[in-house]
């Protein structure tokens, strides 16, 4: 568990470097990635990878948006490094492996799951943004 926390923090911060994120945002990148991975890791056994990815990306989006406002930087800096661990790389790899070894039914099954997870990540990102917009609009309405 501790190893997971540690490695996910390092891995996402390192991804921040690969994306040339500003130096003083690397710790925040690592934090966002760690929180996302933590949620995914805890919930994936009980909820399945698709819902777990959705939940984790919504959280990543919310944290990134708060950080973006706090540090006055584009959201993308925090969210992109954070969602990298959730990208279904392993599953895509297994799907490809089955394709190469001519196990087509299994390969298709894995490919479909990969697509589902990718879709969940997409929905999660948009959902967090929509939540943010709704929240802001509700808060600002009385002033209009």
């Amino acid at each position: 568990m501790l190893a997971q926390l540690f490695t996910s923090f390092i891995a996402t911060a390192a991804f921040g470097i690969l994306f040339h994120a500003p130096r003083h945002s690397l710790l925040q990148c690592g934090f966002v990635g760690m929180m996302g991975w933590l949620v995914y890791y805890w919930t994936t056994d009980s909820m399945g990878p698709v819902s777990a990815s959705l939940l984790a990306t919504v959280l990543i989006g919310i944290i990134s948006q708060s950080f973006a406002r706090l540090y006055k930087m584009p959201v993308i800096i925090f969210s992109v490094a954070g969602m990298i661990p959730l990208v279904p790389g392993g599953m895509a790899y297994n799907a490809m492996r089955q394709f190469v070894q001519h196990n087509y039914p299994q390969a298709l099954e894995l490919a479909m799951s990969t697509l589902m997870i990718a879709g969940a990540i997409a929905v999660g990102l948009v959902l967090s943004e929509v939540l943010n917009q709704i929240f802001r609009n509700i808060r600002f309405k009385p002033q209009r």
Partner: protein
Amino acid sequence: MNNHSYPTPEIIEVCLLAGKLMMQNGAETYRVEDTMSRIASAYGISQSHSYVTPTGIFFAINDSEPAKLIRIVERTTDLHKVVEVNEISRKIGRGDMSPRAAVTELSKIERGPLRYSNRVQLMAAALASGCFMIMFGGVWRDFPAAVLCGGAGLAAVQYFHRLVKVKFFSEFSASFLIGLLAALLTVAGWGQMMDKIIIGSVMPLVPGLLITNAIRDLMAGHLVSGISKGADACLTSFGIGAGVAVIISYM
């Protein structure tokens, strides 16, 4: 509204340069358009139209000036430059910067070196590969192998990209190299789980930013940008997959 009035061509130049820099370095399309129209309105132009795609930006201001086009050839990921452009656009929004000063600043950013040197990037990729291997259920014994493969993979991408300008080829060869190295290390007894090592090492090549941006663009209604970024991401993933697949098919 601002009471200075600057010549329109200068304003157009600032907008286009800012837009180009952001698009080249991995910003989302809606952010590019938003920044361009904000800069224009800060300089007192209430109506501006921009059409942003990953390969070119069109920008038009009122009727008197013709629309201008700027071509975007190379796209990398350098979020630091996006942040810097963002800061300049904030400054312009506050009315602290004339178009001429902004152009100088923006060209300084354009010529600026990458934030992190290649060596730092290599170390980051190597470290990330090892960590991803652990996160995806690998064992600590494989850590050095994953670090080695991940570092070699990124080095190969950077090297081949300088050698040939075909992105697909550099990604294909890099993942081929990763697969080969992982297989050799496993055979030599340096690694136990070849699959995990490969998955971890391939992660630095995965087009994460492109995928996110493609989705964001599509949802924001920038259909052309979204689809072209998505196609780019698919091509990259396919290159990575094909490179590894060659190795596993011979295992």
